[in-house]
């Protein structure tokens, strides 16, 4: 499409016809229909998000009319302000950032340590333990909510953020992901060389493993952050009172208690989604790459 196969032949026969290399092995170009279908799919993917913003910029009276509004009105700031105060969105956003940040950091560090051990070190029961890690992926943590609730009630942790952070601090997927990455990206000779120089295990981890793992750590961190930010089932059980909700719990509160103002609810939904959308605009390429990488390896 962009590559021209022929040079403009003004300089005579001396100009060789340049062909893109290895044309036969390349994928076929997408035609108009491909583009059209993908465009429709993209519109379907983005429309609800854009419309959230449209609805948040109107008022509830306008939302209760047909046809529904398709363009922005002038109430966005007002609605954002009401959502901000009514649902305590400032606190909620801060709480969610703390939760998602801690969970991402913990998952990344613990997964890198375990992934390194499984990828590069020899120890007894290694294969059995790795099988156990994979098996835990099949156990959904939600099935243990009752005892988990009893546990945090016993510890008086209800409505405290640690009740949401600690149970999700490690991830089997993370261990698996880092093991796959490190077994390829970290040369074993590098570890051996560091060890010959007398470095302790922790020095090896700090000066060799972490630097080598950095790209994968970034990807795993982003994926975990998104998941923790959006987590719903456990936070709504653990953070039920009005103490310190996450954004997701706060959003459910917006619709309750009084006649719900739909445009304010949409403003709240927008506030809760905006930080992640921003991350997608900035790091979309890396996040997509990370999901695809994890998919092939998993």
């Amino acid at each position, binding site marked *: 499409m962009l590559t021209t196969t022929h040079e403009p032949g003004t300089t005579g026969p001396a100009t060789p016809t340049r062909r893109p290399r290895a044309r036969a*092995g390349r994928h076929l170009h997408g035609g108009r229909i491909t583009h059209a279908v993908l465009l429709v799919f993209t519109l379907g993917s*983005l429309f609800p998000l854009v419309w959230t913003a449209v609805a948040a910029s109107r008022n509830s009276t306008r939302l209760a009319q047909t046809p529904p509004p398709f363009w922005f009105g002038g109430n966005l700031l007002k609605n954002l302000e009401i959502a901000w105060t009514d649902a305590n969105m400032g606190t909620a956003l801060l709480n969610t950032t703390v939760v998602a940040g801690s969970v991402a950091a913990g998952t990344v560090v613990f997964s890198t340590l375990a992934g390194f051990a499984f990828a590069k070190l020899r120890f007894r029961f290694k294969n059995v333990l790795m099988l156990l890690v994979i098996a835990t992926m099949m156990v959904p943590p939600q*099935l243990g909510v009752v005892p988990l609730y009893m546990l945090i009630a016993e510890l008086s942790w209800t409505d405290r953020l640690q009740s949401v952070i600690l149970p999700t601090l490690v991830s089997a997927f993370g261990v698996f992901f880092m093991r796959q990455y490190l077994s390829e990206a970290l040369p074993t000779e590098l570890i051996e060389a560091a060890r010959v120089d007398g470095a302790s295990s922790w020095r090896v981890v700090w000066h060799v493993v972490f630097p080598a793992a950095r790209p994968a750590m970034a990807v795993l961190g982003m994926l975990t952050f998104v998941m923790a930010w959006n987590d719903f089932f456990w936070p709504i059980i653990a953070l039920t009172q009005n103490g310190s909700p996450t954004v997701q719990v706060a959003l459910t509160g917006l619709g309750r208690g009084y006649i719900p103002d739909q445009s304010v609810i949409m403003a709240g939904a927008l506030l809760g989604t905006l930080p*992640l959308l921003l*991350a997608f605009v900035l790091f979309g390429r890396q996040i997509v790459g990370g999901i695809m990488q994890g998919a092939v390896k998993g």
Partner: protein
Amino acid sequence: MRWSPYAFVAPFFLFFAAFGLFPLLYTGWASLHRVELTAPTDMEWVGPRNFARLLEDEFFWNALKNTFTIGIISTVPQLLIALGIAHLLNYKLRGSMFFRVAALTPYATSVAAATLVFVLMFGRDYGMVNWALGLAGIDPVDWQNGEWTSQIAVSTIVIWRWTGYNALIYLAAMQAIPKDLYESAALDGASRRQQFVHVTVPSLRPTILFTCVVSTIGATQLFGEPLLFNGGAGATGGADHQFQTLGLYLYEQGWVNLHLGRASAIAWTMFLILLLIGAVNWLLVRRLRKST
């Protein structure tokens, strides 16, 4: 160095034991007791009574049935569309990265935010969906109160959030297929469509199975969408429980009706269902391996 490998893997296993394995097993123990949310430490042994009551409970069977139907009507279209979109994304395209990132944005949206928007769009009187249907001359549909319509609406939210994610997983697997497979198929005169059916799909078989298992586990635990589709009315899943799932029923029994013992019995039943699905899946994989 001898002990350090164990130190490196220890955090994972310690946290998993404390917050994953122990609760799962203890759920089994709690399911044999009468436990109330108001006094979670007072446990009274009742044996299998919670399970027996579950089997007589019409709302349990209703939730099981709903989980199953919503699971089917959300998973099947989702994976089929994802497969098609992945195939298109696999072509050389202008702006292919834009399409990929856009496909993944619904994944960045939380269940809560997405459901609240869809509730508004599926509104009976002023919703956008009914307005569009009206343009096509179709009478307005009561998306919240109809049995099938509400389940379709809930499934739509699931499909919207996860199709792009699955498409990228398929795309990754497609890009790992050796190109000479396509070349030899083309030499044999296979059309693009035939190449898709006879080269792409068979090569993707493990990935398709993987996404089926993951989606099934997700469908079994469906919770946020049906909870919030009910417009703040609680965990009943609609006036007639028409879209109450097992996850929602568990929440209702435990945290609305305060019966933690019964909630535990539901959790363990869900666990058994997942084991059953796992076993069926394993048998399926074995048969597929034999046949190829």
